[in-house]
């Protein structure tokens, strides 16, 4: 099926809002901030995405999901362009995305706490709010969690172990 109507950028962005992150299904790829641009040349649609982490296994799935969503709408001619620079940062995550994350049980990134290029050995842990009881009395269990983008925390009040979406910039 080929859509008789020429694609518009606004429509493509709308469709991308319906593509979710396979590892955090409550987030759309727009919430996550990985879509850098949409360009349309004739019937060809180019979607530029940027990986969160170099080895993120979700990126291939996301590219496939984008193709499938656009194909279902009658746009078969889709090019997915992977852009490395500027590198993805959690600053690009939407406010709505952050709220959805917390409601889902994952603590959203606390801005400005990326260790970035500073090697703060045994530094003070970021004060992360427990997504269950909202206490900030929590501690870092491991910098490396269930996926590349998350760290593992535990709440000292309700004792819930939880994922924290690391601040990355």
């Amino acid at each position, binding site marked *: 099926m080929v859509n008789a109507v020429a694609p518009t950028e606004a429509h493509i962005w709308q469709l991308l809002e319906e593509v979710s992150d396979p590892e955090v299904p409550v987030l759309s790829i727009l919430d996550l901030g990985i879509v850098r641009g949409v360009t349309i040349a004739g019937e060809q649609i180019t979607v530029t995405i940027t990986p969160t982490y170099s080895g993120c296994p979700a990126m291939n799935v996301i590219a496939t999901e984008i193709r499938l969503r656009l194909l279902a709408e009658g746009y078969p001619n889709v090019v997915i362009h992977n852009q490395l*620079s500027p590198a993805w940062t959690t600053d690009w995550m939407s406010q709505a995305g952050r709220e959805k994350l917390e409601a889902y049980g994952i603590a959203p990134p606390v801005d400005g706490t990326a*260790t970035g290029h500073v090697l*703060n050995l045994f530094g003070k842990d970021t004060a992360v709010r427990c997504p269950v009881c909202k206490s900030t009395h929590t501690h870092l269990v491991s910098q490396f969690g269930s996926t590349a983008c998350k760290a593992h925390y535990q709440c000292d009040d309700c004792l819930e172990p939880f994922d924290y979406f690391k601040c990355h*910039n």
Partner: protein
Amino acid sequence: MLPQNHFSAADAAPATAPLFPFVLQLADTSLILAHRLSEWCGHGPVLEQDLAMANIALDLLGEARSYYQYAAELEGQGRTEDDLAYLRSAVEYRNPLLVEQPNHDFAHTILRQFLFDNFHYHLLKALLTCPDAQLAAIAEKSVKEASYHLKWSSEWVIRLGDGTPESRQRLDKAIATLWRFGEELTTPTAMEKALQEVGVLPDYAALKPAMQAHTEYVFAEATLPLPTQVFAQQGGKNGRHTEHLGYLLSELQYMQRTYPGLTW
């Protein structure tokens, strides 16, 4: 903080030395270390550290893929990233000897990681201003991850060195075994020198003070004396490997070698 610019005024000069073998060397290095770390999966001392090593392996594998894809493009002979990773023999691999060394115990793995991370992080920081746009972009992506890695391995060197008599003697043994492989990382081959001369690669000597300062800081915290060993074992970057690489590749490449062109 902006990265310090390690490049000379000759930055704008067109590169006359081929970039392909260097990108391949970076790719091989990240792939082989990723494979070694992934061997820990399911065998880590505690679940969190098992996950940490798998996470670091994944970061390095992603970085290796970026380099292999770029290398395939630079070569322009129709080989793909998979051909480069799966269909080259040990003598064609260009990783330094350090990263192919077996895991042994956790302390051994940690020290290998620390030696590599301390170089990798500082190299990537310098490559941020590389005149080759694609290498700079890969570095920009990877340096953030490398900073997590270096923080992790540094903290573990401190924990093990300043830990129990058992952890200390294991780390001492790792230092005695692995220190000789560190020097190869910052010793340029003829190919790397040629790229340094045209300003594509940073001068490794310029990376050394920051690497040394970090080592001194971590070793002091770990109550470890700085190793005085001067003998340096080299050769991997020129294709002369230890016997370990062949065994590693036979596992890594088994499926593609046995069923050529296999996909799933």
